[in-house]
């Protein structure tokens, strides 16, 4: 040993460990902010965020290593400069939500670095004053502090992820309740039900809904009737061409939908199925089939064969074995497949747009889209209809949540 205990060599205060990870993350977010400011063409914001990006990266590079005390001094100065620049910017500009948020991503990391490096264990470690007793108590303290700091960081990230998902939803709900047909305006500044009244009061919305319901339920039924026996056969029987056909199923899934659009259209035209629900039901069932079959096959695989053999010995026919034993056990997967087929049909846009040329046969997504390009766009009506269309989807997800999770994790864990 070289006189320094193993604790001293290993010890890095929790604060420093956190800064090592989070300063680059903060810098990355500042890089995104640079991009956003370029799009918004705000020179001031651009300059500040570029400066922030550079400052945070430099701060990361200057983070103390516990041996060179000058690094701490330099890092302190840099952090202080970052805080000052961010605060000055906060006072100098008008405070929109975005500006406030983007400045926080400079002020907060720099501020916390400044604080941690000036007082407390990290400060004394950074100035090189650590002996082995301090290092050992520091290691013990790390065990307590580190999980809390990490959890705080993780939740900050998750909040950002949630915001990315939920802001558009809040926005569209706000538009649907805002008077007039405008996209801007602050959230919750005015309230009206006029868009809902005009959408739900008119006849075309209900016509589209009827079409969508028929197509979605039809697709679900036809899809399940095809996918369940197919999945079972793929799972249990070893027939000629089994591997080949499973591969082809996968292959079909790999092509982008646009490639099959034209052949589909010609087939439907020949069969006289354009502008009909049946045409769409057939197209959707077939498109969703590979995934449904693969999902169900995976689940059927996880049903032990011994169960089927026991049922055979108990006097069941092969068909009875299937619907008395295998099917009841596979309900989560069947529910999930049903939900998947329903949603795929409910949300599908391109095929429905191409196959249906008359307003009479529009499904909801096509109908909604038709509200946008006409002269004098009806953003409010569009938003209201979008909200209404999403409600069944949301309800179904909530209702099937348990089955969905079971279905998704099936096969992964064997009980």
């Amino acid at each position, binding site marked *: 040993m070289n006189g320094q205990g193993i604790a001293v060599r290993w010890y890095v205060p929790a604060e420093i460990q956190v800064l090592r990870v989070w300063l680059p993350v903060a810098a990355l977010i500042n890089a995104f902010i640079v991009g956003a400011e370029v799009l918004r063409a705000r020179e001031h914001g651009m300059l500040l965020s570029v400066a922030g990006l550079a400052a945070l990266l430099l701060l990361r590079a200057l983070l103390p290593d516990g041996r060179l005390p000058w690094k701490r001094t330099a890092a302190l100065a840099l952090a202080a400069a970052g805080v000052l620049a961010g605060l000055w910017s906060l006072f100098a500009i008008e405070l929109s939500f975005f500006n406030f948020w983007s400045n926080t991503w400079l002020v907060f990391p720099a501020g916390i670095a400044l604080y941690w490096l000036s007082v407390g264990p990290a400060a004394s470690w950074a100035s090189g004053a650590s002996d082995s007793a301090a290092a050992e108590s520091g290691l013990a303290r790390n065990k307590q502090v580190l999980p809390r700091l990490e959890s705080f960081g993780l939740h900050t990230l998750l909040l950002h992820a949630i915001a990315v998902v939920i802001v558009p939803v809040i926005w569209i709900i706000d538009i649907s309740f805002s008077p007039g047909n405008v996209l801007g305006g602050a959230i919750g500044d005015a309230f009206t039900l006029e868009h809902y009244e005009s959408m739900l009061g008119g006849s075309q919305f209900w016509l589209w809904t009827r079409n969508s319901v028929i197509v979605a339920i039809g697709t679900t039924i036809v899809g399940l009737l095809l996918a369940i026996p197919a999945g079972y056969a793929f799972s249990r029987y070893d027939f000629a061409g089994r591997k080949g056909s499973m591969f082809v199923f996968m292959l079909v899934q790999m092509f982008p939908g646009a490639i099959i659009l034209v052949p589909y259209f010609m087939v439907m035209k020949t069969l006289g199925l354009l502008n009909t629900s049946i045409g769409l039901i057939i197209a959707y069932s077939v498109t969703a089939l590979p995934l449904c079959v693969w999902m169900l096959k995976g689940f059927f695989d996880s049903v032990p064969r011994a169960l089927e053999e026991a049922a055979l*010995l108990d*006097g069941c026919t092969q068909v009875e074995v299937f619907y008395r034993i295998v099917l009841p056990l596979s309900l989560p997967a069947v529910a999930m497949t049903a939900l998947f087929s329903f949603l795929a049909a409910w949300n599908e846009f391109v095929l429905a747009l191409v196959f249906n040329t008359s307003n009479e046969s529009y499904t909801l997504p096509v109908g909604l889209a038709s509200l946008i390009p006409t002269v004098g766009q009806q953003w409010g009506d569009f938003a209201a209809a979008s909200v209404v269309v999403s409600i069944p989807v949301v309800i179904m997800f909530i209702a099937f949540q348990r089955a969905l999770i079971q279905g998704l994790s099936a096969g992964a864990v064997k009980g």
Partner: protein
Amino acid sequence: MSDVEFSKTTKIYDDGTHALDSLELKINEGEFLALLGPSGCGKSTALRLLAGLEDITSGEIRIGGERVNDLPAGARGLGMVFQSYALYPHMSVRDNLEFGLRRAKGGMRVDEAEIARRVDEATEMLDLGMALGKKPKDLSGGQQQRVAIGRALVRRPKVLLMDEPLSNLDAKLRNRMRFEIRRLHEMHGTTTVYVTHDQIEAMTLADRIAIIADGKLQQHAKPLDAYNQPANSFVGSFLGTPAMNLVEGEAHNGVFRAGDLSFDLPEHLAGWQGPGIFGVRPEDVRIVDSGGTRFRVGGVERLGGEAIYHLEAGGHWIKALWHRSGGGLSSAAEDHAELNVSLAVPTAVIFED
């Protein structure tokens, strides 16, 4: 009549594996037969052919004198206990027990009162009263096992099939269930075919055992007969723990030679001439004061009530079992000691193969 007869029964899988090769085996009515062998030997295949879960390639299987080759599994009137129990997870214990009775067709149909009576009977016999309303996943391993046995028995099967039923239980429960299974068999007297790779289960449970290796029947005999007079060296080494000592060599005028090792043969084997495999059980190896063969103690496994001695002479290793109550090896010899050992005991055997 519910005897079972395999005649020239052969199973060859699509990939060419000969799982079972011309099996000849008769199981008498009311008999408990254990199919014993190492894993992959074909014993499970034999059971699955009998159950109707797989098709016979050639030969015949008869149950109660009737050829069942082409009868579907459900029509053969069998009950089966699976290794994994295969209880229907979505049904309560009661539904599991009733399921087979409700599926019975034609002349085998069972009316409601009879179903209730049989379920009650099985419940009582297997002590499942508290569990009837529960789902299988809420039961302990031992209870699941009993439900599986109950489900097979309520059908009043002509033959009860068991496929390694105890292998999923811990050692303690396994011993208890082994006793239970034997007790049930004595109560019911149902013809039973029991597949296992565990020789202790086979020895303790069965009236007769059929030892199978490489798809071929090696010996079909009462457990002790198979133990005392193994038909070949495989049976000899497979039955018994520790395994029988086998020494390959050549006999000439009452002396057996294997490389540097040579020893006198017991009287009943003295007439043997030419090559063979000499076998002696570890508990029969004797220490003698004079004569015998000089062996070195290479190591001792002390298990408390008994000890296993590893003895070496002329490059050959044999095991000897010492028992505290005086069985086997006569005294507790020390490690690295040299002993005079006699292998010329009345229970020794010589195999041709």
